[in-house]
Each structure stands twice: as C-alpha cells, then as structure tokens.
C-alpha cells in the first residue's frame, strides 16, 4: 500500500457520505412514486396491480421493502459513476497530471465486501420470513378447488362436484372462475399434459401445474370484482390463449350461482 491509499479511502468515504446527505431525497422520491401510483390503471406502472388477497399483499410489501435499499444502492452507484465520468476525465485534469498509482486499500475492500453482505442478508431474512408465512401448505381453508391445466385451458372442479371450464381463446372473455369473498380457498394445481402456470397478478404469484404431482396455492379475496391473468409457462401454440378470469361475489350471490351450476350440470 502506498501513502496515497489512506487518502484515497478518505476521499471515497467522504464522497459517499456527501452523496448520502445530498442524494437522500432522490432515493426517497421514486419509492414515494411507487407507493402513490399503485392505483394507476394500465399504462406504465412500476408496481404490481393492487393486491386483493393477503398473500398478494405480503408479496407487494416485500417488493416495496426490497426497493428501499435497491433504490439507494442504485442511486449511489450511478452517482459515483457520473462523478467519475465528470470529474476525472483527462480534459478536466491539469496538463501533465499523473494519477496516483494506487493498487488497493484493504480497509475499503473489506468495507465494500461487508456492506453488501449485510444488505443481502437483511433482504434474504426479510424474504424468508414472508416465505414461511404465506408459502406453507394451508390447513385452515374453507374449501378446496382442483385447478387442472391442459392444452389449452383450465378446469376448476368445486367440492359440490361441478366443473367450470375455461377453454382458451383470445376472441373474447372466458368463463369466470367464481369464488366467494373473504373465504380462504385452497387451489390444488394439477397438470394433465405439459407444465402450465396459474397466475393472476392482483391475487398472488404464480403456481405451476406440473403433471405427476399436486401443487398448492391459496387465495382470500377481500372485495367483489373481476381479475384477469394468463398461463405463465410456455405450453404450446395455444399458450397465449390460456386466459384466466377470477370473479369474486358476495356469499349469497355465490350460493345462488352454485345452485345454478349444480342444476345445469346434473
């Protein structure tokens, strides 16, 4: 280590400190933008659609949580790059300037090994807590629907015995998968031919329907409405037609709908 190394360390640390104090608002602004614009319908949105199920809400929160360190790191590193580009170009240096021949700085190198380590361990721990909370098999569900993916469509078999068929099309809407509001429904995913993936972004993440074993997810929609999704695993030439529509209704409406389905299919 040469005599310039300690000074270089102080210089970089000083610039990092100055950037943190000066650029803090820059890091916060996009986060605030993320939070405020989550209601934006369509168009360019930096966040998922408004979650309507608790597991989707938790994923949403995890995403925001990761965004805070991510945006700070992004702004600091891009600022450092810009600083280098502006400040240290040869045309800005005095004529005949010979840069200090620094080969490294042990303290600094340890610092930027430890700091990212702490950040990613924090993010991993935070994510793992959410993983344990919402991705374990649920047992306290109200009822279970068997969701079966095939080329190209989805079948939903209800405990009452009838089946709703969502045959894939892009020409119009498919038949909705109807659920009651505020009921925890377990979905048992099955694949009958190739792998499909059931995804409605407003409800929660994806769950693959793989031939050979059952895969599980759940939903508990907190309001009346209709939500759209698509198959998310390439499954053949009709992949893009495998629309998903989930409709939630009040319990009374749902009961009437179930009676109608039973009558229609018996």
């Amino acid at each position, binding site marked *: 280590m040469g005599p310039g190394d300690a000074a270089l360390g102080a210089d*970089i640390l000083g610039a990092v400190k100055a950037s943190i104090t000066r650029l803090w608002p820059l890091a916060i602004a996009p986060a605030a933008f993320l939070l405020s614009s989550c209601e934006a319908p*369509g*168009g*360019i*949105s*930096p966040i*998922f659609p408004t979650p309507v199920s608790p597991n989707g809400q938790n*994923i949403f929160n*995890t995403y925001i949580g*990761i965004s805070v360190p*991510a945006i700070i790191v*992004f702004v600091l*590193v*891009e600022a450092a*790059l810009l600083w*280098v*580009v502006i400040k*240290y*170009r*040869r045309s800005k*240096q005095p004529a005949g*300037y010979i*840069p200090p021949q*620094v*080969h*490294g*700085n042990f303290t600094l*190198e340890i610092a930027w*090994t430890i700091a*990212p380590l702490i950040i*990613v*361990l924090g*993010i991993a721990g935070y*994510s*793992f807590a*959410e*993983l344990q909370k919402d991705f*374990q098999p649920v047992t306290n569900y109200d009822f279970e629907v068997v969701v079966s993916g095939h*080329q190209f469509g989805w079948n939903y078999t209800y405990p009452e015995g009838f089946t709703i068929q969502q045959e894939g099309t*892009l020409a119009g809407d498919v038949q909705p998968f109807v659920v009651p509001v505020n009921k925890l429904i377990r979905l048992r995913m099955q694949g009958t*031919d*190739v792998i499909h*993936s059931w*995804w*409605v*972004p407003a409800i*929660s*993440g*994806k*769950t693959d329907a*793989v031939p*050979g*074993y059952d895969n*599980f997810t759940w939903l508990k929609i907190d309001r009346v409405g209709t939500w759209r999704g698509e*198959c*998310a695993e*390439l499954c053949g*030439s009709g992949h*893009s037609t495998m*629309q998903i529509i989930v409709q939630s209704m009040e319990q009374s409406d749902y009961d009437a709908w179930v009676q109608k389905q039973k009558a229609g299919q018996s």
Partner: protein
Amino acid sequence: MAAVQTLPRPKAYDDTFWKPITLWLTTTDHKLIGIMYMVTGLLSFVIGGIFALIIRLQLSQPHLSVVDAETYNQLISAHGVTMIFFFVTIFLTGIANYMVPIMIGARDMAFPRVNLLGFWLVPVSILLYYGGFFTGGALDAGWTGYAPLTEKAYQGHSLGVDFWALSIIVWAISGIMASTNFLTTIVALRAPGMKLTRLPLFVWAQISTSILLLVVGAPLAAAMILVEFDRQLGTQFFTTQGRPVLYQHLFWFFGHPEVYIMILPGFGMISEVIPVFARKPIFGYMSMVAALFGIVFLSMTVWAHHMFTVGMNTYVEGFFMLMTMLIAVPTGIKFFNWIATAWWGSIEFTLPMKFAFGFLATFLIGGITGVYLASVPVDTQLHQSYYVVAHLHYVLFGGSVFTIFAGIYYWFPKITGRKLNRTLGEWNFWTLFVGFNGTFLIMHTLGLEGMPRRIATYANPAWAATNMIITVSSFLIAFSVLLFFINVIRSWYGGEIAGNDPWRANTLEWATTSPPPPYNFERVPPVRSFMPLRDLREAGELPAEPEPEPGSR
C-alpha cells in the same frame, strides 16, 4: 482500394489474412481460429437479431399475426439459442482464443489440433440446430426446452427437438474441448516471469469461465441425451408420466453457470480496459481474482432459483434464495474496484472506455433486479413475466454485449492493424445505449402489469403503447448494429493504421506487431509485474510514443 496501397501496411498483415481458403480450413493457428470463432459469433448475432426484430413486430400491437403462434414459438426459441449458444459464448471463446496465448506470452494454445476440432464442431452444431427448420419446424419450447413439452406426444410432427438436442450435445463437447485447452495453456505455457499473480485479469476470467464450462457442460449433454432417450427409445425420464421437474434441475445446473460463462470474460475485458484508459493500475487485483472464484463457486449453487414456482420445500427455496443473493457480494466487489480504479484517474473516453462505462451503468440495473428475482415471494410474481425478460437482457445485453463491444473496439487494432472509425463508433455507442435502454427499461413494467413472457400475442389494450415503444427502440438497436458492421468492414480495409501499442496499454499482446506474426513474438519480453508492457515503457525499452492529446482518438 488505391488509397490503401499508399499506407504503410505491416507485412504480417498480409501474412495473416490473405491465406487461401484451404489454409483457413486447416489452420491450427490460435489467432486464425479465434477470428473464425468471432466471425461465426457475429454472424449468429445478426441472425438472432433478425429473429428478435420479427418477434418485436409481432408484439408491437395486440392481436397481430405477423407470424402464427407456432412460428412465433420457433422464433423465440431460435432467438434464445442463437444468442446464448452461438453468439455470446462462441464470440467470447474466439476473443479468448486470440488473446489468451498472446497475453501470457505463448506461441499457441496447448493443443492446437483440439482447438481446430473444437472450432469446427461449432458450425456443425449451428447447422444441426437450423436444420430443424427444414424438417417440419425447429424447437418451439423456448431456448430452455422444458420437458414434457419437448416430448414426442406434443412434438410428433417435427424433428426440431431432436436437431436441437443433438446440436447442444455437439456444442457442449466443443465447449469442453475449448475449456480443457484454455486451462492447460494457461497452466503450462506461460512465459518466463508470468507467475499466476501476474496474469492479466482477462486471463483469470478465462480460467474461471473454463472451469465453469468444464463442470456444467457434461450435465447439459446428459440432459439432452436423456431427452433423446425419451423421444426415440420410449424411456420415461422427463415425460408426463416421468419427472418433468428433474429436467429443470439438470438444465439449470448448466443454465445458471452459463450466465457467468457469458459475463465473466466480459468482466475480464472491462478489467483490462479501465486501467489502461484511466492510467491507473487495477484497484484490488487479488480481490478481483478472489471475487471471480467466489462467483464460480456460488453460481453452481443457485440453479433452483429458476424453479421457485414448481412447489419446493420452503427451506430448500430459502437456501437457493440466500446463495443467489450472496452473488451480489463478489459482483459488488468487482464493481467497486472498477469505480475505484477510475477514481482519481486521468480518464480518456475512447470508444472501449465508453462501452465499459455503458456496461457499468446498465449492468448495475441487471444486478439489482436480480436481487428482487432472488427473493422467493417476489419471484413468484416476476417469474416468467416480461420483468424477467428485461432483467436477463440487462445482464446479457447491457452486460455481455456492451463488454463485447468494448473488447472489439479495444482489440480490433491489434487483430487487424487498423483502428475502428471514431465517428461511426460514437454513433454506434450512443444509438446502442439509447436503443437498449428504450427497449428494456420500460419492459420491466410490462411484467409488473402481468404480461407473461413467450406469449405469441395479447388482448390487453393497456400493454399496446409500451410494446410499441419497445418495438421502435429495438429497431434503433438494429440501426446501431448496422453502423457497427459498416464500421468494421470499412476500417478493416481502410482504417487508420494503429501501430503496435495505440492505447499505451499494460499487457503483453501490445508488445508484438499488429497483427501479430504467426509465432506471436520474435522475443518474449520479460515479465516483472502484472503490467509488463508498462514496465518496459518506463524502463525505456519500448520506442517512446508521445501521450496523445485528449479527445484526439
């Protein structure tokens, strides 16, 4: 070409390039083989780019049918396979084939004939893959070729999947040959004084890349052989009755390290370019090497992060999440070391340096979005969506392709004896930078809004405007690449003569003529540090070249 004749051309230029075709076909010279690798890679870049443009036309508006869904699936598969297997990996093998022996002061690779065979397997692999298009349709299950969609029951009509599997087996054999050759060369053929601790970082990057390809090439070939068994012999490894997820494990055990096979040589090139143009030694040489090996180790323990939605045990998912996030640590070390190298420097923003900084600015985004994707809960939303497509292009285009351009602009004078044109190069850089970010930055939002990847068309009108912007920007990328090829062809014939050491660089390849003679060095210069050429220059053992004026090149 009358003007060309008036320029003083090094005699070795004619010796190297104007050989009869039979010599090109049979040469064991690592430089000529390197050039053939690079040309093959760049041709694949053009072909894969044309596939990409058709894909973008198809997606520019909802409900389009520029191509039908079946053709579309073949195009996305061919785009992925071409860019990953036939462009980036092949090009990087080529540039290493050319540079590694010269940088360590060797006359050739350790096994010149294995090198020859390894190269000629590449066109065999490429032709096998495209052969699928003439047998009723090429692979249409994505570049990953997930089972059981590749099973005969769903692909009975064509031999495309068989051609793909055979092509990848041949490719893996070629890669294993090249890796063995690189490792042996670097271990056995270093010049006197070239200790391991004095190797250029590009050579260290090639060591780590070769180790990776050596370890993961064989499982890839094994997976493809099992796919063929399922299809042709009726076995049930990955079929609907078998274990489709097993295929994903085998494939991604190759597939994730492959990402690092495509970026580590780029890291190496950036580690060469930044010190030269900042006029400072690389910051933290040993930690750069350690970080490379940290990445090599970690990259083999993260494959199942591509499979977080198949329904694994949450503790297993937690393990893969943690290992994936840990890769941010060695990558961060490299990033900070690059910035510290440039800090206090006297930076000359030549074209290689511009591409190096373009790489730093964009690859950072790919790295950060990678942390989101590693988080299992968040990944279940982002997985298989356009967010992932944006992320992987930030890593592979903002990463690999920008470093490849940096490497080409840096080493073109050494390979051809002539510099690339500065004006065309500036246009190339800025149109590429704008076109690239215009295409892929906005693509993240499509994924967040719920647009899955690999859909042939879509009905949602809310995605139309974004897709149109992406398509227009992608044509800007095509324009930029066109400028690049015009520049390469023009400069190759009529560019400014470069001289031996146009950049006042640090490593051995700049000690010999441009282009180097077939035997590389008349006399291998002494190596006293990891910057042997700078030592010679300071000791007055090189002809003095004045420091150029800022902005003059």
